[in-house]
C-alpha cells in the first residue's frame, strides 16, 4: 500500500556496480518521492539499466546501499520483489506464448487462482486494446503491442513501484504517445514510476523530477524547471525563406536579443539562446517580437518563428559538455514551443 506517500519510494547512497574494469554505476545517490514519476535521463551506456536492475533485485550492488520503500534490496530482496514490477528494455514476456497465456502465467505466479488470473488477463487485454490479439503468440505482435502487453504484465498486481526501462525505445511516435498515456494513467492511481530514458522529451513529458546520469554518475538532479533554469530561459528558432538573407537576419537578431545567434545545419535556420533575465530591458517574448518586426521592416522573409523553453537536449549539453546520441532531428520538431 502507498501508506508512505510522504516518504521515499527509492533511496540509494553511493550505489556502485562494476563489470571488470568498468564502473557502470559509480556512486549513484537517488531519492525518489513516492507517488511521482521520476525520470532518469542519460545516453546509452550511462548506467541507467544497471541501476534499475540493482533496484529491482536483479543485480547485486558492489558498493553502497539501496532501499525500496525502506527495504534493503539485498537483505530484504523478497520484500522488495513483492512491491515492484519491471518492464525492461526488451519485451519481458514469453514470445512463444500468446498474450492471454503470458498474463495468466504471471497472474498464477503472483498467487491468483485460475479463474481470477484469467479474468484479470481478459480485463487487462481489453483495457490495453489487445483483445483481438489475445490468442496470438507475442512474437507476431508489433512493437507497440509488445510494449502494451509488457506493461500489462507489470500491472497484473498494481505495483507500488514500477520500473520502466526505456519504455519507448524503438517505437514510432504514435505508439510512443500511447505508452505515455498508459504511464500517466498508472501514476494517477498512486504507483510510483521510475522511468529511464534517453529521449529528453520523454522525461520532459512524464517526469516531475529528473536525475541526469552520465558515465555512472548523477550529474544533475531536480525538478524539470530547476534543470531548465540552470541553462537559461529559452531559445528562439527562426526559419527564413531565403538562405541568402541569413547573415542579415543573424545580425538583426543578435542586436535585438542581445544574444549569441547560432547557424543551424539547415541553411535557412537560426537559433538564439535567450538569457534568464530581461533582454535589453524587456521580456524575452517582447524582445523576440521586436526582432521579428525589425526583420519584416528590412524585408527578410520569415517562414517560421518560435520561442520555446530550452529543450532537455540543451540542458544535457550544458551539463555534460558533450552531446547525447539522441540529439537529432527531434530537437527541431519539439512540440513544447510556444509559437509567437
Amino acid at each position: 500500500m502507498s501508506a508512505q506517500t510522504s516518504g521515499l519510494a527509492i533511496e540509494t547512497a553511493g550505489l556502485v556496480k562494476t563489470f571488470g574494469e568498468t564502473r557502470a554505476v559509480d556512486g549513484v545517490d537517488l531519492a525518489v518521492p513516492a507517488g511521482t514519476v521520476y525520470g532518469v535521463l542519460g545516453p546509452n551506456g550511462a548506467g541507467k539499466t544497471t541501476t534499475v536492475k540493482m533496484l529491482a533485485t536483479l543485480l547485486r550492488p558492489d558498493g553502497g546501499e539501496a532501499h525500496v520503500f525502506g527495504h534493503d534490496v539485498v537483505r530484504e530482496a523478497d520484500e522488495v520483489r513483492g512491491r515492484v514490477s519491471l518492464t525492461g528494455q526488451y519485451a519481458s514476456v514469453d514470445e512463444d506464448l500468446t498474450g492471454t497465456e503470458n498474463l495468466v502465467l504471471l497472474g498464477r505466479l503472483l498467487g491468483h487462482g485460475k479463474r481470477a488470473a484469467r479474468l484479470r488477463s481478459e480485463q487487462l487485454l481489453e483495457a490495453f486494446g489487445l483483445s483481438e490479439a489475445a490468442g496470438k503468440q507475442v512474437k507476431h505482435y508489433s512493437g507497440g503491442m509488445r510494449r502494451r502487453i509488457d506493461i500489462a504484465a507489470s500491472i497484473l498486481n498494481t505495483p507500488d513501484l514500477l520500473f520502466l526501462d526505456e519504455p519507448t525505445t524503438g517505437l514510432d511516435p504514435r505508439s510512443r504517445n500511447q505508452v505515455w498515456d498508459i504511464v500517466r494513467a498508472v501514476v494517477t492511481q498512486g504507483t510510483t514510476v521510475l522511468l529511464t530514458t534517453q529521449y529528453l522529451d520523454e522525461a520532459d513529458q512524464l517526469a516531475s523530477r529528473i536525475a541526469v546520469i552520465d558515465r555512472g554518475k548523477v550529474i544533475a538532479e531536480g525538478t524539470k524547471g530547476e534543470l531548465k533554469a540552470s541553462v537559461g530561459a529559452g531559445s528562439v528558432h527562426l526559419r527564413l525563406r531565403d538562405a541568402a538573407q541569413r547573415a542579415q537576419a543573424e545580425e538583426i537578431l543578435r542586436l535585438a536579443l542581445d544574444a549569441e545567434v547560432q547557424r543551424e545545419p539547415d541553411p535557412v535556420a537560426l537559433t538564439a539562446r535567450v538569457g534568464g533575465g530581461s533582454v535589453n530591458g524587456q521580456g524575452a517574448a517582447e524582445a523576440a517580437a521586436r526582432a521579428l518586426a525589425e526583420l519584416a521592416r528590412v524585408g527578410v522573409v520569415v517562414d517560421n518563428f518560435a520561442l520555446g523553453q530550452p529543450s532537455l537536449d540543451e540542458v544535457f549539453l550544458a551539463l555534460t559538455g558533450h552531446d547525447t546520441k539522441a540529439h537529432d532531428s527531434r530537437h527541431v520538431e519539439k512540440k513544447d514551443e510556444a509559437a509567437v
Partner: protein
Amino acid sequence: MSTATSTDSKELAPVSAESLAALLIAKERPPRPSALSASLTFGWRAILKIKHVPEQLFDVTAFPIMMVLMYTYLFGGALAGSPEEYIQFLLPGILVMSVVMITMYTGVSVNADIEKGVFDRFRSLPIWRPATMVGYLLGDALRYAIASVVMLTVGLILGYRPDGGVMGVVAGIALLIVFSFAFSWIWTMFGLMLRTEKSVMGVSMMVIFPLTFLSNVFVDPSTMPGWLQAFVNNSPITHLASAVRELMAGEWPTAEIAWSLGWSGLFVLVFGPVTMRLYNRK
C-alpha cells in the same frame, strides 16, 4: 516512422484510460503461491511451449525410434545371434541412454531463455526461487515420458517382451524419469554458466557421449579391459541401466535402485545449489 509500423499501430484499438484506472484501483494482492504451485505453473509454461512449437518433440520421438532400430539391427546379429534376442537385453539400456541424452536439451532451452527479457521478469517475482528451473525440468519430465513410451512401443513391435509386465515397466520408467530429472540440474547449470547455445551443446556432448556409451547399455562389461570395467561398473548410467533392465524383467534389484537414487540425490545436492547461485547472480 516507417509506414509499416504506423499502419500497425493504427489497427490497434486505443488504450482505455477508464478501464485501466478501474483495474489499477484493485490493490489487494493474493497470497504468494506455494513452491509447488509456482513450479507447476512453470511446468505448465513448458507444456504451452510444446503446444505452440510441436516440432520440438522431434527429439523425443524420431530420435528414440532411430536409436532403437539402429542399434537393434546393427549389433543384434553379432552380439546376441539375432536382433530379436538382442532387443531383450538392449531395450531397457537404449531407453536409458536415449532419455539421458535428451536431457541435455534442458541446458539449451535455459540458455536460449536467459537471452530474452522474460527471464528478468521471472527473477523479479516474489516466488520460490528454484521454481523457474524446477518448471523447466517438470516440462522435460513429460518429454522423457513421451520418449519412453515411444521407444517401448517400437520395442514391443520388434519383439521385446518384458517379464515384469506393466508394473515392472512402469517402475523402470519412473526410476528413469526421477534420475533424468536429477541429472538435468547439470544442464541447468551449464545453461546458465555458458554464454551461447552452441557452447552448451558442445559441452553437453562432451559429457554425455562418454558417460552413456561407457556403460553396460550395449554389452556386458566383463569383456572390457580392467581399467574400463572399473569406470563402467561404477558409472551412474550402468547402475541405472541395470536397475531399469531388471525392473522390467520382473526383478527387484535393491542395490542398483539404491545406487541410482543415490546418484540422483547427489546430482540435485551438488548441481541444484550451483544452478541457483548462478541464477541469482545472472
